[in-house]
């Protein structure tokens, strides 16, 4: 009895709020996909798997999904490479490294929405001025008007924002590598590049598991930045899956299909992150 009291006291609040925010809406979300419903206030009608069929046939949904996957791939590579490079540089034993560390982390303080506005100013107003004054052809025309460049603009801003965060995680990993391991390899005559690739990076696998997981999840769910920087333009070429789902549900008034697409997104994210964590844990064990 006392045990039940303690159980409720300690875990009760978390259970309640978790259920309110996540559990109930998530379970209910599955139920909603079986209903035909235009807006939240319109009457519901049982529709079976129709919403899923319509989601599967929605070409724009798959276009946005494919684009998101490309974005996920590009950002995972670039965010981690940049983050690791920064971490490596600031732990190489120079003075002022705390200052650099602090500076590189700063972009993380800015939320996606404001981030988008800041970089809009850079891509729309500042770079073209720079391009014209210095004669840099690549910058002369606004990037956000070109489907390819607008996509890379999103990637660049993402790297700019999250590389600093990953850097911190890598630093934590780097300083936990025992000195004698590195020293031993130095004595063996390994040069610094060999030390990096043969000793340091394999020892960093646990850190990579975290950073890859974080960048994977963030990239799949990107919305604020997408919304504020490109708004999906030019001509929907940068509309990623979250934005598509939001528009499907709230703007095209198609709650049922929107929710079905959101569930498909969940399944894809679950499978991808599951596979990632499973294989990298395996690497960790064997490496």
């Amino acid at each position, binding site marked *: 009895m006392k045990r039940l009291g303690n159980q409720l006291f300690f875990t009760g609040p978390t*259970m309640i709020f978790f*259920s309110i925010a996540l*559990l*109930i809406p998530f*379970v*209910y979300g599955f*139920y909603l996909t079986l209903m035909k419903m235009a*807006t*939240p*206030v319109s*009457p*519901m009608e049982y529709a079976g798997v129709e919403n899923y069929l319509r989601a599967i046939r929605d070409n724009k949904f798959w276009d946005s999904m494919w684009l998101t996957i490309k974005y996920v791939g590009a950002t995972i590579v670039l965010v981690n490479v940049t983050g690791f490079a920064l971490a490596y540089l600031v732990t190489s034993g120079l003075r002022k490294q705390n200052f650099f560390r602090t500076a590189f982390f700063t972009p993380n303080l800015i939320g996606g929405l404001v981030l988008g506005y800041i970089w*809009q100013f850079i891509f*729309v107003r500042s770079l073209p001025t720079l391009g014209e004054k210095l004669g840099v052809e690549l910058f002369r*025309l*606004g990037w*956000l*008007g*070109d489907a390819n460049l607008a996509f890379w603009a999103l990637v660049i801003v993402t790297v700019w924002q999250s590389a600093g965060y990953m850097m911190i995680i890598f630093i934590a990993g780097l300083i936990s590598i025992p000195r004698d391991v590195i020293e031993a390899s130095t004595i063996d005559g390994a040069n610094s590049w060999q030390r990096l690739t043969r000793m340091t990076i394999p020892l960093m696998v646990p850190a990579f598991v975290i950073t890859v997981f974080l960048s994977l999840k963030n990239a799949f769910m990107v919305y604020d930045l997408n919304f504020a920087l490109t*708004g999906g*333009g*030019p*001509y*929907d070429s940068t509309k990623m899956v979250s934005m598509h789902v939001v*528009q499907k549900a*709230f*703007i*095209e*008034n198609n709650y049922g299909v929107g929710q079905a697409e959101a569930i498909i997104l969940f399944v894809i994210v679950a499978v991808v992150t599951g596979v990632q964590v499973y294989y990298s844990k395996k690497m960790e064990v064997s490496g």
Partner: protein
Amino acid sequence: MRKTFVSVLVLLLAAVLVLTACGGTGNTTAESNTNNSTATNNNPSAVAEDEPVTIIIANGKGELTALYEQAAKDFMTENPNITVEVHTGAVGDSLSVLDRLTSSGVVVTLAMVEPNGVLEKYKDFGIDLSGERWVEETNDAIKNAEGTIVGFPFSIEGFGLVYNKQVVENAVGGSFDPFSINTRDKLIALFDQLQASGVQYPVAYQTEGWSVSNHYSSQFLNQAEDPNSIVNQLKAGTFDLASNEVWNGYYDTMDLLASEQYNKYGERPIGQYYDDAHVSVGKGESAILFNGNWAFDSLQAVAGDSFGFIPVPVDNNPDNPLNNKIVAGPTNIYIINKDATPAQQEAAKKYLNWLVYDEVGQDWLVNKAQVISAFKNNPHKVTNPLGAAIAVAIAQGKTMPFSTNYIVPGDWFSILGPEVQQYIDKRKSREDLAQAIQSYYTSN
């Protein structure tokens, strides 16, 4: 073991209970709402006069945010028993305030919607307003499909080729009549004159999705006396765009506006040029852009110069009425929610009457908000040159229907906007575009 099994079961049961409870409340609210509304329709007069009442207004047009709040304040001073809560959408926010409020459970009393919304999306929203006094002061009251007046026209707006008077007059050497440009060749001649006068790019063509789709691409509907007849043919699949001269004509003109020769952004015609285009035309670096009277807010930010509208030419026949008129009509329609309480509905009607008859309201609408009133009794005239140009064109009979009112703007913006932009960017042929518009109508 057994104990944990039981506790998991209890948790699941609790979850299921909450879920079913949700479903249950859903049904009852829906029912009680309908009950309310029927009750409302039966006895609208049973309302006590001075009971305090709060009304919720959902406005469009985010440019006027501060002004709407001012209007609410002024109105409340004169009607102390009524509290007005104003919500305004942000410019470019494609999710309307009304939808957002409704989906979060708020019963909006007075909503501003697009004219088309009265007929389509919100066709079951509004109450009958045909008994209102203001009906006799306007030609633009909006009727529903059954012909009952349900919509209050808040404003008259129009669009066309906005030009900077100073720059154009300098180029043509003297006074300039915008209606003298009534063929495409004359427009080209004007562009050339502008270039000869030193304006390198006469046009700063801003190609936002809503502008190139909802506004520019709906103009062809005006080739019929009743634009709806063409919409109906499109729905029936009997209207062939690719072989339609007027439809093609508008895109021939668009090609000109977007061309590398004349357009400041010709090298990369799609991009975020809204502010730059208005700054360029405002400062006189370019002379012409395609937009509506609301563009003045942006033009004014950089220059107080005077501006006007040139009709968008569709062919080279100077007698074609399409070449001699600008597009103008009622926009921003107020409708009163049938689910609001009778007292709220009465208060909302008061607010509408305040806009039409009260001196402060009249002054607010035209002088402060610079809105062209749809009501004959309003003595004020807008000073904003683009608004004034529309008012003059209306007086001279040189306007044709606001073609955007005959399409579903939300759909056009999100579905056809990207298609038109791809056409402008030469990634889609004109046949592809024709196909896209036709299949939008036939597949729905």
